[in-house]
């Protein structure tokens, strides 16, 4: 079949580029579709309009700023400047629909006292929505998304066991200034046997089966000058929130995995080791990172997680 035959058989009679490869391959030379060509011209017009409206061309050590402007408030005065994303953000934070709604609700709820907030369903629904975000950003890294903490590391906020107190005032203070928890290690003060005795006593307070003689000896150390544990935890081991000393009688364990222990002896060993090593824990303060209103939302949220007093 010759090239000439092919051309004659072409039903469209379209012009080709004139090249012929392999004896019969040719390339159509179609014009661009009209709609496409006009689309192309339209993008050029769009670009020119865009250059006039928005910051665009570099000129020397500056650039064309465009005719579009943004007005926002700065230091109580209105300020107008050329359009740019930072000014747009400033305006959005001040007058954007959602920013305004959120700020209004925040101010409205923050103006109420805790008793009102906790009792009012609408306030609490805002608190939950708002504080869940803050909690996720600032608190969840340690206390976990749901507030259940990490055994041995970070306190559970969903039970009613509070080292530093579970009233709204105490929670707010914790959030504001942070807390520094400290229990000295007793490795130099108590012998291995004494450590075991104190551990037995503490476990006996929570109805775990322990050797009664050891527990009795432990009680004497706990409430006597040998251990002096009572100074922070109290003679009845109910804890002292002003010291961040936990209640040791409610079978709620934050720093020792007592419930996860596989045997009685394992459990006692964990507690004894803890007393031997002591603990130091820091909760950072948020007063310089969050506004008072935000701390109030978080306080109400944490209080409502299930353990608030």
């Amino acid at each position, binding site marked *: 079949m010759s090239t000439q035959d092919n051309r004659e058989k072409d039903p469209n009679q379209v012009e080709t580029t004139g090249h012929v490869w392999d004896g019969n391959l040719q390339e159509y030379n179609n014009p661009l579709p009209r709609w496409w060509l006009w689309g192309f011209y339209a993008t050029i017009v769009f670009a020119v309009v865009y250059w006039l409206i928005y*910051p665009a061309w570099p000129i020397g*050590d500056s650039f064309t700023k465009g005719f579009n402007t943004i007005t*926002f408030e700065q230091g109580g005065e209105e300020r107008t400047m050329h359009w740019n994303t930072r000014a747009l953000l*400033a305006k959005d934070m001040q007058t954007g629909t959602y920013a305004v709604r959120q700020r209004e609700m925040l101010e409205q709820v923050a103006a109420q006292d805790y008793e009102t907030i906790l009792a009012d369903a609408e306030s609490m629904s805002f608190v939950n929505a708002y504080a869940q975000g803050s909690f996720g*950003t600032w608190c969840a890294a340690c206390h976990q998304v749901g507030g259940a903490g990490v055994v041995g*590391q970070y306190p559970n906020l969903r039970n009613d066991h509070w080292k530093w107190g579970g009233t709204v005032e105490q929670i707010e203070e914790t959030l504001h200034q942070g807390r520094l928890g400290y229990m000295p290690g007793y490795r130099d003060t108590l012998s291995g046997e004494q450590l075991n005795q104190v551990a037995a006593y503490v476990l006996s307070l929570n109805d775990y089966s322990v050797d009664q003689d050891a527990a009795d000896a432990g009680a004497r150390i706990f409430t006597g000058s040998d251990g002096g544990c009572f100074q922070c935890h109290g003679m009845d081991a109910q804890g002292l929130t002003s010291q961040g000393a936990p209640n040791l009688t409610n079978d709620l364990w934050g720093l020792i995995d007592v419930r996860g222990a596989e045997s009685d002896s394992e459990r006692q060993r964990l507690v004894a080791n803890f007393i031997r090593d002591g603990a130091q824990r820091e909760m*950072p303060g948020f007063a310089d990172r969050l506004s008072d209103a935000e701390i109030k939302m978080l306080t109400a949220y944490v209080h409502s997680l299930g353990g608030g007093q």
Partner: protein
Amino acid sequence: MKHESVETNAGLLIILTLAVISVGGLVEIVPLFYIDDTIEEVDGVRPYTPLEQRGRDIYVREGCYTCHSQMVRPFRDEMLRYGHYSLAAESQYDHPFQWGSKRTGPDLARVGGKYSNEWQVQHLIDPQSLVPESIMPGYPWLATTPLDYSDIDRRMVALKRVGVPYSLTDEEYQANVEKFGEEHARMFDIRDAEDNLVAQAQAENFDGNPGTITEMDALVAYLQVLGTMVDFSEYDDGHFAEFR
């Protein structure tokens, strides 16, 4: 020039193609080097100390940037979550910058001071022990690998060549004292780099293990300084907008 002569001459086609696609780069990137407003006027931004710089090297070595950006964009949702948007000035001493474009994990531009050293160490060793739903891999060897800082002075010289104001002479040191204050200027003196690195690691003990200077010390030192150099309470909303 006829179109056909371009299409049928491969060498010419390559040269002209390169010329055309370079226009995009030339127009968008080159002017940033001579436009006055590119780097904002702001106090507080300083080069990294030797220890922080080694931490940054480890950040790059481990490929943290493949999942973490360091660029808070100027949007309301990002402000609410991460804090103030990033400034060009804040990465002026970064070579190369770590802005990134992939957020498999959260942005880290303002992570400094957000968590305790203890948390950072535990999280780097075993992320899931603190964030069960995390897909971040653990980096436990950082805590046990001693930090190699034998070449810290040469690393700083290299950075000096690309514009970071570390000092090698008394004159440069004096200039740094005026610009960053004496305490910082001392840290930027290449001649004392090794001593400064050791001193900072021992004084601040980032990894909770005072005995050895580990890669964990360096990385946590770097993470804890990210985004903390500028005190944004000193500036109005509009201040940084002026530069754009």
